[in-house]
């Protein structure tokens, strides 16, 4: 079972990196790998989210299931998730999903005692594990503009209203429920290659050159008044809208500008919900994809069964 290898050696260049945002170039591979990475980042990289809520007292205006749903959607810091167990295959707790290997417990107690409305936020959620807490946007590099950080509001209480509950957070993936998805957005685009034919440009009047540069809805081209030429300033601003191609045709110079997507170069943007760092999200996605590939390898008994069949087949064919 030894064949020639047709392996590729992809290259990566990181352009911009923040805790919850990454932009990078992926080259020397094809769209199938880029798309597989994108799909895995959205639906198969595990995080931790609240999955079970036991409500002791709830006299707020929101009903129990409404609050349980809101709790589920709160992003929790999930660096631990990759090494945690799924509660369905945890043998330490007979699958009830309440042991330290597969779950994290939260408690919330809030009661409004005065005339001012009380905001119950993620800051009131008390975690049993200091490494799994609601995401705090205040210290992330992008941050919210809000000077007083209050966390995410869960419910508002009036005088005399009370909320008391216990919640269990578990490991899960976005395929199960979107609350477990660590990705806010993941996109990739083909890198465009733009060629301007300067000889054909010569045949155009100055005002036509200016209108050509301005015909793109995004700022891809500029008119240089010194050399009288149209130049490409930002090829990546091109949205594959074909507007300049149409403009060239209407100016009776089809082919003046030619644009080709480079089919082996991609520009990725990854935004995280804050559950894990954007850079870690990419690395985890590669790991998960490797695990998935490992799982689809042929098992020994399949190969053996075929070997026997092969002899039988050769026999039947008269071999």
């Amino acid at each position, binding site marked *: *079972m030894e*064949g*020639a*290898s*047709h*392996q*590729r*050696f*992809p*290259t*990566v*260049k*990181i352009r911009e*990196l923040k805790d919850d945002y990454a932009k*990078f170039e992926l080259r020397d*591979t*094809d*769209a*199938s*790998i880029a*798309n*597989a990475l994108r*799909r*895995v980042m959205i639906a*198969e990289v595990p995080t931790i989210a609240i999955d079970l809520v036991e409500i002791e007292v709830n006299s707020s205006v929101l009903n129990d299931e409404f609050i349980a749903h809101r709790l589920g959607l709160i992003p929790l810091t999930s660096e631990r998730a990759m090494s945690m167990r799924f509660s*369905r295959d945890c043998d330490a707790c007979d699958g009830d999903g309440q042991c330290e290997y597969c779950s994290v417990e939260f408690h919330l107690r809030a009661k409004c005692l005065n005339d001012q409305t009380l905001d119950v936020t993620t800051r009131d959620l008390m975690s049993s594990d200091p490494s799994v807490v609601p995401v705090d946007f205040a210290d992330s590099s992008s941050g919210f503009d809000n000077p007083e950080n209050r966390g995410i509001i869960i419910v508002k209480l009036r005088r005399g209203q009370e909320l008391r509950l216990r919640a269990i957070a578990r490991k899960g*993936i976005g*395929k*199960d*429920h979107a609350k477990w998805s660590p990705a806010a957005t993941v996109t990739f685009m083909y890198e465009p290659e733009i060629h301007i034919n300067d000889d054909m440009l010569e045949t155009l009047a100055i005002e036509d050159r200016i209108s050509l540069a301005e015909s793109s809805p995004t700022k891809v081209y500029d008119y240089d008044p010194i050399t009288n030429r149209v130049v490409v300033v930002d090829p990546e601003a091109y949205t594959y809208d074909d507007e300049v191609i149409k403009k060239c045709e209407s100016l009776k110079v089809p082919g003046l500008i030619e644009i080709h997507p480079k089919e082996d170069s991609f520009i990725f943007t990854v935004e995280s919900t804050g559950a894990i760092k954007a*850079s870690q999200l*990419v*690395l985890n996605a*590669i*790991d998960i*994809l*490797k695990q*998935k*590939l*490992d*799982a*689809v*390898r*042929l*098992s020994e008994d*399949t*190969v053996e*069964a*075929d070997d026997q*069949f092969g002899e039988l*087949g050769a026999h039947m064919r008269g071999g």
Partner: protein
Amino acid sequence: MNAPDRYERFVVPEGVKKVSYERDTKIINAASFTVEREDHTIGNILRMQLHRDPDVLFAGYKLPHPLQYKIIVRIHTTSQSSPMQAYNQAVNDLDKELDHLKNAFEAELAKHSREY
């Protein structure tokens, strides 16, 4: 109230094989692989990797129905190879490619964190 459990989309049921293999009865060196609980993520990268192999005459995959959580990969090769050999080679090559990609990304990450 009779909705199937959500985990049925990605947990292989007990007693079911992850990958099963079926030879084509009429064409030599043609076979179908049924992969349980996988989708376009695995199907498409396998297909594209198989296309890089010159001994593969045909490689395609289908997701028969959105509520049947399996894909079928069909491979037809020349007599120099076999569908099983091509399949194993494709999985190995993809695995090595991802190893390389991981190292490349980690190296870039280290470089990036030094610069800033």
